[in-house]
């Protein structure tokens, strides 16, 4: 009973905290990332949550409406995990977090980045599966997830990404078959290589996509 009350109070508290927001939602989302990662080189040091927006933070680029369009943190020695709050950056076009030591899963909330053009998470230690929600990123042109520890199947929904020009999931631990239809018809096997459990292209008409041995 008491625990219930705690939960209720916590919820009420949370809602009151969130209510007057809009002040610096995007800054808060980025700040959640800052809190979630280790930053030995202090590259996120300028991320001051008390500022009215994150547009003067280093590694963050905004448009003229002070909305975040780029996050450039490649090769920044960051470790730790990504945060679901990143999905709130609805004008984000470039999410560049390649060549860090990021671990944990790719939050499914990244599917909310409806302006995203480029998602570069290659050369990290990300685990879990590729969220099917990424198929909502209708502007996505570049999806580079290579050289991580991703597992599971390649979501077939990604074939809906009509703008996708580059798709690289090589050097992971994905399994099953990979789609060949839709935007995936352009991609060569190089995009998929070095996934020991990946069985090759799906055989349209003969084998159902989701029938896979070790997957």
């Amino acid at each position, binding site marked *: 009973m008491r625990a219930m009350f705690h939960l209720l109070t916590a919820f009420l508290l949370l809602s009151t905290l969130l209510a007057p927001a809009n002040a610096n939602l995007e800054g808060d989302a980025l700040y959640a990332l800052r809190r979630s990662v280790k930053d030995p080189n202090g590259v996120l040091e300028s991320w001051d949550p008390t500022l009215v927006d994150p547009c003067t933070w280093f590694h963050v680029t905004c448009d003229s409406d002070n909305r975040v369009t780029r996050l*450039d943190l*490649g090769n920044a020695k960051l470790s730790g995990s990504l945060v679901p709050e990143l999905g709130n950056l609805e004008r984000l076009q470039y999410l560049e977090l390649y060549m860090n030591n990021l671990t944990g899963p790719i939050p499914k909330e990244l599917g909310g980045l409806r302006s995203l053009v480029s998602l570069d998470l290659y050369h990290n230690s990300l685990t879990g599966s590729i969220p099917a929600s990424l198929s909502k990123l209708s502007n996505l042109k570049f999806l580079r997830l290579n050289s991580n520890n991703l597992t599971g199947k390649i979501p077939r929904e990604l074939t809906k990404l009509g703008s996708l020009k580059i798709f690289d999931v090589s050097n992971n631990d994905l399994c099953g078959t990979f789609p060949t239809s839709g935007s995936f018809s352009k991609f060569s096997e190089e995009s998929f290589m070095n996934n020991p459990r990946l069985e090759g292209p799906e055989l349209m008409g003969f084998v159902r996509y989701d029938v896979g041995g070790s997957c």
Partner: protein
Amino acid sequence: MPLNPWITLFSFLTIILPLLNHFVAFAVNPQGEALFSWKKSLNGSTVALSNWDPSDETPCGWLGITCNINEEVVELELRYLDLYGTVPTNLTSLVSLTKVVLSSTNLTGSIPREIAILHELNYLDLRDNALTGKIPSEICNLLKLQEIHLNSNQLEGSIPVQIGNLTSLKRLTLFENQLNGEIPNTIGNLKNLLMLRAGRNKNLGGLIPREIWNCTELTMLGLTHTSVLGFLPPSLGLLKKLETIFIGSSLLSGQIPPEIGNCTALQNIYLHENSLTGSIPKSLENLKSLRNLVLWKNSLVGTIPSELGNCKELSIPLAISKCQNLEALDLSENVLTGNIPRGIFQFKKLKTIYLFSNNLSGEVPREIGNLENLHNLDLSLNRISGNVPVEILGCRNLTYLNLQSNLITGNFPGKLSGLVLLQFVDFSDNLIEGTWPLHVLPQHLVFFSISRNNLSGEIPSSICDLNFIKYLDFSHNHFSMIPPCLGNMSDLINLELRNNNLHGTIPKFVKCGNLRNLKLADNQLEGPLPRSLVNCKKLEILDVANNKVNGTFPHWLVNLPELRVLLLRSNNFHGSIGNHKTKFSLPNLRIIDLSHNMFHGHLPSNFFKYLSAMMNGNMDSDGLQYMGDDYYFVWGRYFYDFYSYYYENVTIDVTIGIKGNYIDVVKIHTRLTTIDFSNNSFKGEIPKVIGKLGSLKGLNFSHNNLMGHIPISFGNLTNLEWLDLSSNKLTGNIPIQLTDLTSLAILNLSKNHLVGLIPQGKQFNTFTNASYSGNFGLCGFPLTKTCGNDEGQQPPPSPTIQEDDFGFANGFHWKVVLLGYGCGFMFGLGVGYLVFSSEKTKCLLNIIYRERRNKVRRSKKNGHGRIN
């Protein structure tokens, strides 16, 4: 062999004396022995305990020791000594102790469990030491305890549940420790409890147990700076004796229960920085003794209950006595609406009224003049309109007057100089028009701002008679003339004259030894930059951007060792900035903007060689620092019912080109380093030495006549976030080393004569056509032109990119660019020389306004930080 008697005696003494000494040590009774052995265990100075002499029969005469008639030690009381030891553990002989006070004695270690044998103990005070470990639950067996003071230590763990056994307990102070867990609900058993203070235990959380409201004797409840959460229940009203409730900076939510009006003894209500909602209960009118009502930074809505004021308006002596003790009213940072109730201004003892950051409207009531004792009036960040009534001159003790960011229209009535104690006056960001009686300002002003109004006319030279003024801000008005004497104000730190209609030349600066910031941007000032500025040895920011200043590059600036920001943008400067013989030494320079002038000639290597502050690319992280953090305006000021110091950083308020947008900033990160020489006529090659400026964040050489190659050394600029070399005559390849710039967010190399393969990978995966357009020899991703096999050292990432995906037709990048255009000049798009149009200015003001509001909130927070 005859014995030498002297030797014999000596031998005897050497043997016997230590024994004797030992024997003397035991001359004292076992109680004294226990105390003396504790003394010997101390590592600090025991000079104060010099009369703790073991040759005494009893310790009863020793410092800090009290005995009863049976010569049993009943009190051990030592304060403010550097004992550097632990709490005594050998207590078996000291069971008669009723009182132990070892406060501020630099004790370490934990509170010993052995304390449990002191069954007579009724008073335990170990406050202000460095004690660690848990509060031993054994303490709760000492049923005679009436007071426990363990505050200001480093105690951990939770408050023992058994605390409820101590039914005699009257005072329990545990604040300033590292306690965690929850407040045990057994606290409700403590029917005699007068005082519970457990604040500043950041991890002490959970709900405030409802049993606490059974402690009907409570006069003081302090839980500030904890993580306690939940609602204040109606049963709070049962605490008829409560004088102070101090639960600020915690996680309270819900409404303040109207039953608080039943706590008729309440003098101090501090519930600031919570998430309290709803309105301020009208029942507060019952609190006759109320002195401090502090509710800042909640989510309180509604009007300030007029009942608060009505107490006084009844004009019946009884009613006057009701609220007349109120000294501080702080309802700032809520969502209060409506007028300020006139009745508030009947409380003659009021020293502080803080109502800033609400949505209050209406005018400042005439009754303000009743407040003879008022020191601080802060109504900033509301919607107060109309005139400031002349009656304000009745507030003879006013030292701080802040009406910033309201809708005040009227000119100031009468002579502000009548308020002789005024030190701080801020009328900025209002709607005041016409002229202000600036010639009658109070003599002791330290801070005066009237920026962001619609004032016009000349700034009178009498301003220069303000001998103590440090901060003077006339920016963003329509003032027309600078009095020449402004260059003679020796205490002045900050002079803000930005964005007026100032004509004529910049005056001579003779006595300006304290001046750090001089901002003259956005006026019509002419003539050269006066060389006399070399007298301002502390100058950090020199901003004359967007004027008509002419002359050649001011080389004499090398005599200003502190210069950090130099903004000469958009003026009529001309000539060469120097040659290889010119000595440049600007060791602190971080931001330099020479853009939009008529400079020509080569870029001298010498200029860049000595920019030490821009070189240290891998400085050790020393935390977030802003320019100007190192100095404050400090002056004494009343906070609530005690005197404290208020400090505020200087605002920066300059416009800086950041990633192609001109952004108006109020804070400059100390590592923001930029060079903008764009839109001049510089020629020749880009000096390689620029590659040594490892901390550089932004470089803009666009729209010049630069030739030669992009230096390979640019690959060392690993902090670079924007690079604009567009519209020059650069030749050769784009150095592959630029792919090392993993922070680069904006690259513009368009309109040059670059050739070859565009480097691939990392950030170069993210640049679009627009970065390279107008270089007809470039090929490879993202351009449609593919490289022949001869050039294509690196294959573009598979698969091959099709033309229409990155062309102008699609043009997602162009969308960004055009959005940026509204707020300022966007480089490299042939937009060229965008004059500061009115639309742009409006947009800038918007940014300024938003950041400024934020700044104010923060500085207020600093202020409040002092009283928690």
